[in-house]
């Protein structure tokens, strides 16, 4: 009777270990993530709607109220990112804290804050655009394209 090949034994052990890991590994919490994203994203929009309603009641036009609401939301997001609360929220809320314009402001502050040691001009001043840059580039590019199509259609 020969001993079982130790290499083969190791392989079997490794396979058993893998199946065990697969069984015990928590399923990606997609459902939980979605509930968080929906709730937090929805609530951020409700706060913005409350601000808009207040501005409309105080006599501002629809366009101005909407623009001013964005400015206030951006201010709040920059502040809460600065004091470290927004990123804590982001760990749970995922896209719920990324998709609203507050997420855009958060990306600006968070990336800029990390690069203070490179100076206030080419550190903070440049890193502000790490995420904002690509976003604006594509936003502008698409809007110019739409404008050109509009020119083409109307002429």
């Amino acid at each position, binding site marked *: 009777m020969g001993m079982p090949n130790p290499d083969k034994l190791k392989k079997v052990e490794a396979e058993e270990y893998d199946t065990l890991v697969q069984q015990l590994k928590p399923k*990606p919490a997609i459902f939980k993530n*979605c509930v968080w*994203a*929906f*709730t*937090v*994203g*929805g609530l*951020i*929009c*409700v706060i*913005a*709607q409350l601000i808009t309603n207040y501005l409309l009641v105080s006599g501002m036009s629809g366009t101005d109220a*909407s623009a001013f*609401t*964005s*400015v206030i939301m*951006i201010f709040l997001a*920059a502040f809460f*990112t*600065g*004091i*470290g609360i927004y*990123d804590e929220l982001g760990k749970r809320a*995922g*896209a*719920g804290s*990324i*998709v*609203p*314009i507050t997420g*855009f*402001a958060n*990306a*600006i*502050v*968070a990336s*800029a*804050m990390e690069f*203070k040691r490179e100076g*206030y001009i080419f550190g*903070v*001043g440049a890193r*502000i655009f790490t*995420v*904002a840059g690509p*976003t604006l580039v*594509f*936003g*502008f590019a*698409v*809007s*110019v394209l*739409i*404008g*050109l*199509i*509009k*020119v083409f259609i*109307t002429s």
Partner: protein
Amino acid sequence: MVPLYMAFLVGGALCLIGQIIMDVTKPTITPGHILVGYISCGAILSGLGLYQPLVNIGGAGATIPLSGFGHLLAQGTIKAVEQKGLLGALSGGVEAAAAGITAAIVFGYVAAVLFDPKG
């Protein structure tokens, strides 16, 4: 005025779509990609006339997600083209979104200078 629950539902749904995209494509699609994707898709849908109905239903629930920012750029461009022609194609978007862009850059800079990263 748009009822608050509609802002909640529309805003929540837009964020939910982003979360599903991120979870399914993990780790290829980053938050940065989501922002770029939303502003572009918002502008395209707006150009096709499909985003304004969502704004009518959802109010801030449609304008606060970054797709609403794309909508603002697109509508600004379209209006400017109607008034000024070709020049409007270049100026209209930024004109409409100027307050938001400037606020994000200035408030963002000030906050980044005043506060230090945690941890």
